[in-house]
């Protein structure tokens, strides 16, 4: 499932995938795959992304139970 919260927050701050990737120390491809829902990041990487975007884990990565993928 696509992580639109991450994508919208990044666009809201006018940060490109490349810039966010540099801030958190990963490749642009990794950010792209997280936004596309094709890669599940570790909690450590989630925290780095949240810090870089000035939000909490809940804001970007929390899903209500009915939306949760099996």
């Amino acid at each position, binding site marked *: 499932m696509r992580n639109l919260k991450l994508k919208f927050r990044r666009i809201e701050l006018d940060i490109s*995938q*490349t810039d966010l990737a540099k801030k958190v120390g990963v490749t*642009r*491809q990794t950010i*792209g795959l997280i936004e596309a829902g094709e890669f599940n990041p570790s909690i450590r990487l989630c925290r780095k992304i949240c810090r870089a975007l000035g939000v909490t884990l809940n804001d970007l990565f929390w899903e209500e139970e009915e939306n949760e993928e099996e």
Partner: protein
Amino acid sequence: MRKNNALDEMQELELLKIEHNGCWIAFWGLLIALAVQSAAFGNTDFRTLAGEWVVFMVLAVYLAVACMRRGIWDRRIPMNTRSNLTLSAAAAAALGGLIAITVFRSCRKLSVTAAAALIAASVTFGLCFAALTLAMKKTAKRIRQLEEEPSDADER
């Protein structure tokens, strides 16, 4: 996570580690087995080694192509000409030594042994360096493609 997977996330990661170790044990084990059969036992008949060679080459080509397609080089070895020269020299030294042992066992002449080892090492060095340089260029090109910022419409 795929459906019908009986493993939880931790077990899945553990299984990947086990498979990773198994892959490298098979890779180096096959290479050592081929070297030992050729040098120590003097088995130079390709027909008796063909099975191991085919499996080894399939494994090596799969690893190389899969990494290049995903723009992955190595965890620790930097992607530059100096590394390629060092790795080629190591491969040349290893194969030169192997050929020297094999040839000396059969003819017992130092001059022939040295010439054979030198030729084998030179050819290995040249081929390894060419292959590594080509792989490095392909990988660098793939990394550039993957790192290109997509438009918002087709972002991934």
